[in-house]
């Protein structure tokens, strides 16, 4: 199987660090913040690869470093150390995304990545119309024909089960579940090769959550798009992800097939997660 993304020894900390950090932080110590210097080690030596077309889950409690990891893959947060290798589906030559300058990183992000945030206001501009928000990715890809932009935006709205006649409405007139669909429509606009989903259903009512998850599953099925799915909820992860990474206090403590993790969790923390998800 060909890989799309390979994360190698990726690190991110918030703070200066001190010689005692390594000993005082991590899953065994049960914290990511060093009591000596106050530095948060949000992501320590992360290694994993992502196969083309698969959905990989990242699960862990709040503060375990999931969003930090996702933001680094989204090239919106610079890593302190490590590599994020990307192998374009159309050719073999892998590139290290961490080495890109701001300009090419933004280009890459717009072209190849799509992201959906937990809070819609992080992913959408509330001053623009829903259509304008979805169109942003097309405009960045140098679409310069309003008619064609609106046709494509309407198509994306239909695909994400949004009423296309509301293309010019403002985001604040949409419900929470609909705003997540708008974010998904925007993320898909450039036909990205990787979709990043950060707690997209947290904060939604259970029935709304189920419908958004159905939509993501359907899109994955139809487009065969590679996804990195972050959630604190193993119940969400197990519905979509074939493989899962378990994070705790900034480190990966377990990874494998989701079914296997559910059946036979190895790490005590994973056992805890599984028993509370059942």
């Amino acid at each position, binding site marked *: 199987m060909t890989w799309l993304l390979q994360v190698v020894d990726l690190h991110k900390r918030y703070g200066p660090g001190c010689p005692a950090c390594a000993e005082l932080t991590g899953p065994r110590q049960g914290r990511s913040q060093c009591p000596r210097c106050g530095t948060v080690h949000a992501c320590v030596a992360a290694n994993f690869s992502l196969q083309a077309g698969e959905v990989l889950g990242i699960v862990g409690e709040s503060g375990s470093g999931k969003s930090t990891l996702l933001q680094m893959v989204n090239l919106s947060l610079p890593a302190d150390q490590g590599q994020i290798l990307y192998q374009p589906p159309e050719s073999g030559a892998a590139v290290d995304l961490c080495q890109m300058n*701001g*300009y090419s990183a*933004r280009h890459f992000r*717009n072209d190849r990545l799509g992201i959906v945030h937990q809070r819609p206001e992080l992913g959408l*501009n509330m001053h*623009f*119309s829903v*259509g*304008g*928000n979805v*169109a*942003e*990715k097309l*405009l*960045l890809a140098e679409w*310069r*024909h*309003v*008619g064609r*932009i609106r046709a494509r935006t309407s198509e994306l709205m239909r695909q994400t089960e949004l009423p296309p006649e509301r293309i*010019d409405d403002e985001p604040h007139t949409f419900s929470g579940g609909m705003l997540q669909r708008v974010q998904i429509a925007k993320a898909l606009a450039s036909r990205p090769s990787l979709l990043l989903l950060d707690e997209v259903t947290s904060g939604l009512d259970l029935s709304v959550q189920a419908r958004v998850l159905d939509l993501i599953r359907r899109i994955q099925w139809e487009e065969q798009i590679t996804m990195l799915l972050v959630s604190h909820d193993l119940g969400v992860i197990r519905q979509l992800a074939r493989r899962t990474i378990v994070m705790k206090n900034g480190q990966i403590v377990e990874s494998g097939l989701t079914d296997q993790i559910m059946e036979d969790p190895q790490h005590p923390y994973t056992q805890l997660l599984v028993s509370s998800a059942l």
Partner: protein
Amino acid sequence: MQQTNEQLYNFGLLDEDAKREIRRSLLKAVAIPGHQIPFASRDLPIARGWGTGGLQITLAIITPEDCLKVIDQGDDAGVNAVNLRRLITQTTGVATTVDSCAASLIQTRHRIPEEPLRADQILVLQVPMVDPLRWVEPNLERATVMHGEADYGRMWVYMYESVVRAGDLRIASQYPVMVNGRYMMDTTPIPRWDVPRLDMAETLFLFGAGREKRIYAVPPHTPVVPLQFEDYPFRTEYQAGQRCVRCGAEQTFLTSHFVPDGAGAGQWVTSCSDSSFCDKRLASAEVQP
């Protein structure tokens, strides 16, 4: 009086250090077309809204050999133009003209003269608002980062929304352009009529904003392209059949004014905004009004 002023002030009012600093910023601005360069804007004995940014540029580059033209709203006789002209001549003693072709240095607000400018002329524009990104990013520091990375997606959404809301790219002035394919620049306060005349021009255009302390430039032969869509192209204010009531010109930027008939009524008429150009045409034999 003239005599006394010349002794009281340094040539061009500003001290030599201030002039050198402005010239350094101008050099940078010319080297990176459309890129906003910060400069230490000085306080001058005129109100800020009257264009201290443009005035400081003019005072920093003017030489005793220059022939100066000052316009406001296309008019050499506007209050602002008269005041600025007086200040500059009193502190430099340079010759002045209303003839766009005779001037070596033109300080202006709102307009580029109708007659094509040459390579040996410099046009200085006083700018009230510098950054086109202010519509989508009020924080100046963040806007600077966006310019640095050519991060103009949000501005394009703004243009898209203008079309959707108004059915057209109806932005009267303040029209955004891409300069040399790299930097987005505001064309405030010139009308859309003048925007195409920045493109691949013979002349050096210098822009100064006193309040926002920024300088930028469009050097000769620089591509300047308005933001537009294939199905909603950029348009000037030109209207089919338009005509100046004074000189009969059909291809100029017109302004309208109300002409009272003395009996409490009157009518709106349109004439060239560039008053000296209009006068010149009137004076020439070819024109039969």
